[in-house]
C-alpha cells in the first residue's frame, strides 16, 4: 500500500509492503505499537524511539503531537485520484457551532437580526471562562438553535446565519 503523506507542506511517499516500509523509496525499519488501546503509539524508526499521540481530526487528516509539538498530517493513498484530503468545511454553510462544550451564558441575537462579520452572537461559558462565538461573515440570523442557559456539546449548531450574497438554504 502506498501513501502520499503531507506534513506542513512537505510530501513523503510512504509504502507498506508486508513487513517492509519505504520512505521515498528508501527502506526504513519501523516498529509501531499502540499503548493500552489509547491514541498513543510507541515508534521505533531505525532504532530511534518516539512516543506520539495520533488523533484523527477528519477523514485521513491527523494531528500528531510529538515532544510538545503539533504536526498536521494528511494521508492519502496513491491510488486515490482526488487530492490530499481536506477538512470538511464548516461554517461555509453559515452554521455557527460550539467549539467546545459549555453553557450558553448570553444569547446576543435573535432570528432576523442582521449581523456583521466578527459580531458576537453567543457567549459560551466553560470552565469559568467566557468564550464569544462570532459571525463568520456578514448576514442574517435565520435560526437560533439554543436558549440562554442551555448546555451544549462540542460541534452542536448554535446559530445559523444566511451569509449575505449567498443563496438561501
Amino acid at each position, binding site marked *: *500500500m502506498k*501513501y502520499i*503523506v503531507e*506534513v*506542513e507542506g*512537505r510530501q*513523503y511517499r*510512504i509504502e*507498506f509492503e508486508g513487513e517492509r*516500509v519505504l*520512505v521515498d523509496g528508501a527502506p*526504513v525499519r*519501523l516498529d*509501531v*505499537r*499502540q*499503548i*493500552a*488501546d*489509547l*491514541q*498513543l*503509539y510507541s*515508534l521505533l*524508526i531505525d532504532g530511534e524511539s*518516539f*512516543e*506520539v*499521540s*495520533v488523533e*484523527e481530526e477528519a477523514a*485521513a487528516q*491527523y494531528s*500528531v*503531537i*510529538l*515532544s*510538545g*509539538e*503539533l*504536526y498536521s*498530517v494528511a*494521508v492519502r*493513498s496513491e491510488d486515490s485520484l482526488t487530492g490530499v484530503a481536506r477538512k470538511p468545511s464548516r461554517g461555509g454553510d453559515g452554521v455557527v457551532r460550539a*467549539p*467546545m*462544550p*459549555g*453553557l450558553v451564558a448570553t444569547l446576543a441575537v435573535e432570528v432576523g437580526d442582521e449581523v456583521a462579520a466578527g459580531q458576537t452572537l453567543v457567549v459560551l*461559558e*466553560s*470552565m*469559568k*471562562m467566557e*468564550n464569544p462565538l462570532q459571525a463568520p461573515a456578514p448576514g442574517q440570523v435565520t435560526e437560533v438553535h439554543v436558549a440562554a442557559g442551555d*448546555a451544549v456539546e*462540542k460541534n452542536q449548531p448554535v446559530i445559523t446565519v444566511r451569509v449575505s450574497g449567498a443563496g438561501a438554504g
Partner: protein
Amino acid sequence: MIKKLLIANRGEIAVRVIRACRELGIATVAVYSDVDRTAMHVRVADEAYHIGEAPPRLSYLSISRLVEVAVRTGADAVHPGYGFLAENPLFAQACQEAGLIFVGPDYHTIRLLGDKVEARRFMRDAGIPIVPGSDEHPGGSLEEAAEHLGYPLLIKAAAGGGGKGMRLVRRLEELGPALEVAQREAATAFGDDTVYLERIVRDARHIEFQILGDGYGNVIHLGDRECSIQRRHQKVIEETPSRALSEEQRREMGEVALRAARAAHYRSAGTVEFLVDAAGAFYFLEVNPRLQVEHPVSEMVTGVDIVKEQLRIAAGRKLRYRQEDIQPRGWSIECRILAEDPYSNFAPSTGRITGVYEPAGPGIRVESGVYDGFEVTPYYDSLIAKVIVWGETRGDAILRMLRALDEFRISGIKTNIPFCQQLFGSASFIGGQFDTTYLEQRFSLSTEHRREQELTAALAAAYVEHAKRGRHLSRPLDREVDRAAWRLVARREAMGD
C-alpha cells in the same frame, strides 16, 4: 485534634487535604455534585455526600448545604480549599456559628483582607509599603488623584477580585468612560460600586510570601514564591526562591510579610502578595487568607507540610516551627496542567479522559484530581493537575520539569502541556528574564517544527491510516505475537543454548 473534617471543595485540592487528613488520622467527609460522584476526592474520602447539581452555585457554593452536611455527619471542622468559598467570610462565620472549626483565619480577618481598600489602609497603617493609590487621599476627586498618580493607571473595585471592575486607563480622556464601566461592573459583580485608582507598577514581578500564624502571636514565613508567569491573571508557573531577589531583598520582604501577618493577628496559612518593580522596590498587593494553589513549592524546599500545619493550628495547637527552623533547600517549580487547547487560543477542553500517565521518579510530585475514565466537565476550573519538581539548583529543576512534561501523557482531552514545554524551554524563562506581562505580551507558542521530526509524524499518521484500512489494530499488536514467541524460545533454550 480534629476528629472529622469536611472538605468543601473538589479536584486536586480536595484530594490534597484528604491525604493530609489520612496521615493525621482525621476522618474525612467529601461532598460532590451530580457530575462528581466518581471524582477522585469522593473515592479517597471516608465518607461522601451528594450536595447538589453541577453548577457550583447549587453545590460547592451552597453554604447552607455544606454546613448542614458537616453537622449531620458529626464533622467538627471544615476545610474550604481554595476558590469556591475559601475567601467568603460568610462561610467562615456560618461554620463558626454552627460550632465547626473553620480551617482558615477568623472571619473578621477574611472580611478585612477581602476589602481591598480596607486592607490597603490597614497595611499602610502597619507601615507596609503599598502601591500608590487614590484611596490614600480619600478627600479629593478621582481626577485629581489620577493626575497625582500619573498615567497609565488602573481602576480597581474595592470589593474586587478576578479582574471584574478592573480597567486600564492610559490618559485623562479615558478616565471618565472607564470609571463608568468599572463602577457598573463592580456593582453587578459585588453589589458595591466603590472603585479606586492604583498606579501601574512597570516591569513588575509578582512575588509572594507563604506565612503561617497560630493565633497565639507566633508567625513565620516559608520564604518567597515567584509567580510572574501569568495568563489572563491566572498564574501558570510558580517557583521558589525567586531569581529576581537578592538575599537582602528577600530578608527584607520576609520581615515585611511577617509584620503584615502580625498586624492582622494572622492565624492559619496565608500568602502576602507583593509587586516588585525593576528597581527592586516592592509594594503590598494583597493577602490571600487561604491555602494557595502553589503551596507545594514551598513545601518542597522547606520540608514543612503546610496543610498538616494548617490543620494542627486549626485544632488550637501552637506553631511547631520557629523562623530559624525554616531552612530552604534547593529549588522548586510548579506547572499547572490545564484542560485547554493551546493550539486553539486556550479554549477549554472537556470530555472523558481515556488515559493518564503521570510523570514520576526523583524530585517530582504530582497533585492531580483526574484519572483514566474521569470526565472533565465544563462546570469547574480547568486545572486538572499540578506538576511540582525539586532540584538542587534552578537549572536542575527546569530540566527535571522538562523531563516531567515530556513523560506526562493525557489522552481524551487537550492540555496546555505542549505550551508549557515550550515555555520551560524558552531562553527568557531559563534566563529568568520575565515579568508579569511576559506570557501574554512576549511569549507565543511556536508552530515551527524540527524538520527531522516531520518524518516521524508522517510515519505515525501513515501507519495509523494504514492500520485502520487493514484493520491491523483490531487487537493489540504485540501481545499474541510476543506470547507465542516466548513459548517457542523457552523451549529452544531448554534444549541447549
